């Protein structure tokens, strides 16, 4: 049960990572690599720090 739950979470994580590659490809014409990195980490981190989970 726990093992299956862990694998399921890993699949969700890998899917999110893969979808992020497609979204990055979509944005690559509108933003430079540093802007995309800031969007992905700084804004992402900030939103979690402000969320009830952060």
């Amino acid at each position, binding site marked *: 049960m726990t093992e299956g739950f862990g*694998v399921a979470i890993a699949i969700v994580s890998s899917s999110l990572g893969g979808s992020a590659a497609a979204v990055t*490809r979509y944005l690559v014409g509108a933003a430079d690599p540093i802007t995309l*990195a800031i969007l*992905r980490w700084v804004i*992402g981190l900030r*939103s979690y720090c402000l969320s009830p989970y952060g």
Partner: protein
Amino acid sequence: MPVALWLNVRWPQGWDRPAVAALGVCFFGLFFILYNIALGFTTAARASLALSTLPLQTMLAGALLGLEKLTFRKSLGVAIAMIGVFAALASGLSSAPPGAWRGELIMVGAVLCMAVYNVLSRPFIQRSSALGFLAVGMGSGALALLIVGAFTGSMSVMRAFNSHEWIAGLYLGASGGALAFVLWVLALQHASPTRVANTMTVNPIAAATLAAILVGEPITFNLVFGLLAVFSGIWISTTEAKPALP
């Protein structure tokens, strides 16, 4: 960071602090800049295929740094995956964007950067705590990106985004970064590293599927072949052969 402060976790001490900060800049800053540069040259599916070799490159980096023994089985898995990915990417070059090989080469460099981060992290985590290590690393990486972004005018680029680009950007921040990373760490707490590593092959599948919808990238047979090679390589490397019955 707030959770780490609230839980009063053990932080990296002394000279570990700048080392952990440097590792954070390497992964949370440099890796993602290289990743984004790579995606400027090649398709999402091809880049993700190169990225999915991470567990194998981590093994290779561990062996090169003398921290992990590379057994015959592990070497075989690494070889199968690498040859498969190389064959898949090379055979599909005609249908890839011009100069795609540059992006894939940069992505391999980025993955090596992440592999070294994975290998070198362990002693620092053992001397402090996983959460303290992550908080210092993520904070340093984010700070470095903001400083570089301020000098290069990257922050002002976002002002020109239209509504679709903002939605895509917010999705990237909300789920592609911290959430995916937190879920990965959570998965490692519940399942064996072997099984978790095997799910890396889902990454190119998701990338290819969404990229086909978002930017009309083709899903070709050579990518499916490469994916099978990566899955086989990870499976062989991360599973032990059953001992022969007496």
